[in-house]
């Protein structure tokens, strides 16, 4: 039986996904975000495309793949807003890179580590979004620390459940 440790890069399992899952899951996540949140506005607190970005990045453990996944999902999300295309794109590209880098070094199968990782990345994503929007584009923005912390907490909890479901789409 193979024992996987967290210290050796070569021993960490790299997962692959079918083309359908690679394209379909991000599209489904964005569709859910734009459609369901029109019925239940509190769901805007969650960022399901971000969770999908993190999941694919840490599962593939490939920085280029993580970046491209984050970029594609972010740009698609940008296109659904009225703001310039690229704000979510930049934020999610960086998150994709960071998550894939972390995935190489840390156990990302454990629910606890998943929660902490998503909590941290959600906070970072919102901070990046805020910086790009306010500093680069000068669009009025507020940084509400408590609100962002609450959103990070909610996304962390959702990630534990969602990642468990998405694990089933991994190729064995």
């Amino acid at each position, binding site marked *: 039986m193979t024992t996987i440790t967290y210290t050796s890069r070569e021993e960490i399992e790299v997962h692959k996904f079918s083309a359908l899952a690679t394209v379909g899951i991000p*599209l489904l996540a*964005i*569709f859910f*975000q*734009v*459609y369901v*949140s*029109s019925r239940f*506005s509190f769901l*805007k*607190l969650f960022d399901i495309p971000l969770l999908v970005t993190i999941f694919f990045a840490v599962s593939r453990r490939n920085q*280029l793949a993580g970046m*491209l996944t984050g*970029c*594609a999902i972010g*740009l*698609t*999300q940008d*296109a*659904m*807003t*009225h*703001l310039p*295309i*690229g704000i*979510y794109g930049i934020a999610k590209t960086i998150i994709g890179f960071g998550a894939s880098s972390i995935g190489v070094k840390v156990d990302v199968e454990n629910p606890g580590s998943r929660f902490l990782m998503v909590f941290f990345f959600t906070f970072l994503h919102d901070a990046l*979004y805020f910086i790009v*929007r306010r500093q680069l584009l000068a*669009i*009025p*923005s*507020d940084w*509400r620390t408590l609100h962002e912390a609450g*959103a990070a907490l909610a996304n962390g909890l959702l990630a534990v459940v969602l990642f468990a479901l998405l694990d089933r789409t991994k190729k064995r």
Partner: protein
Amino acid sequence: MLLGLLMAQVIVLASQVRRPVASTGESMSLVRLWIVEIFVPAEKAFNSVGDGISSVWHNYIDLRHVRAQNHDLQEQVDRLRLEQVSLAEDAGQARRLQALLAFKEKFISQTVAAQVIGTSGSEHSHLLYIDKGSGDGIKPDMPVITPKGIVGKIAKVFPGTSQVLEINDATAGAGVMLERTRLRGVLHGTPSGIPEILHVMVDEKIEPGDAVVSSGGDQIYPRGLPIGVVSTTTPDPEGGPFMVVKVKPAADLERVEEVLVITKVIDKSPEAPEGPRALRAADILAQRLPTVVPRAPAKGEEPPPTSVLYAKKPASTTAALGAPKSSSSQTGTPSAASAQTPKPKPAVKPAETENVTPKPAQVEPTPPQPVLQQTTPVTDQPTLETPR
């Protein structure tokens, strides 16, 4: 790697290429156009399925308490009818005054009903997608409302859908007016989604609950549409001479399902209301002057002008105004009996009575009634509320 690079190049290319939308002439990013066109059909499909299920539920299953509700609604209708009567009086008076002043007003003449099919999905972008696009006559900057109040304006138009920028978005704004104090200002959305009125001096008397309506100054929203109510007023946190007036939107922007897009607004001078009118000074004078009953027009002859309106009524006939009309007078055809009536004589100058609908004399013997109200259209001369 190669695919990734190609993909990146295509995205960069597409983000720079802009395609004009045929109906609006506005340029549109290809990336945005493609992505919206991918998601909108799915949203519409889900929406129609959801509506179908909802319709089955509402039309067949959830019909309990309908009788009681109907009874309550009937009572409400009765109550509203009473209110309507008093409001109609006020409105009539306002229209008469506006007509006197040649006041021009913008009237909503055409709207398109649309259903909300999605949002931006982001907390940072208060945006709705509706199921009507350029094919339905929607254009950028058209106002979007609900019966409760303003929702926002059209931001971008696609062939089958449109983006609605809500008034509470940080990039949105509107010209507003406080209904009670008539104070004008500019409403701006905020990142938190609570719109504020900017640049209001601290010494202005504004109270929570004051109604805020559109002022029409922005050339987008017609004047007088409800926007919301003042929720709080706080002094400027930076100690400036202004205060922050937060507004609670009248329309529930978090739960909008159906909206109306105002596609046509016309400038129109309000007309004085039809129907009963106040007595004019000339009428009173005419009643005091000795007059004869007007002559009924012979066959093929035009009826006499307006003298009948001001003729003193003989005891045997009712000379027109305020009295119940006979069938012949309603159709304007003089009856045989009317031909036997004495010839009329104008009691007032023609200039005072031009444009008045000619009316033949009525001969049915009815008890004399006081002439208090006119039932036929008259000129737009100023009326006097109190006779001199």
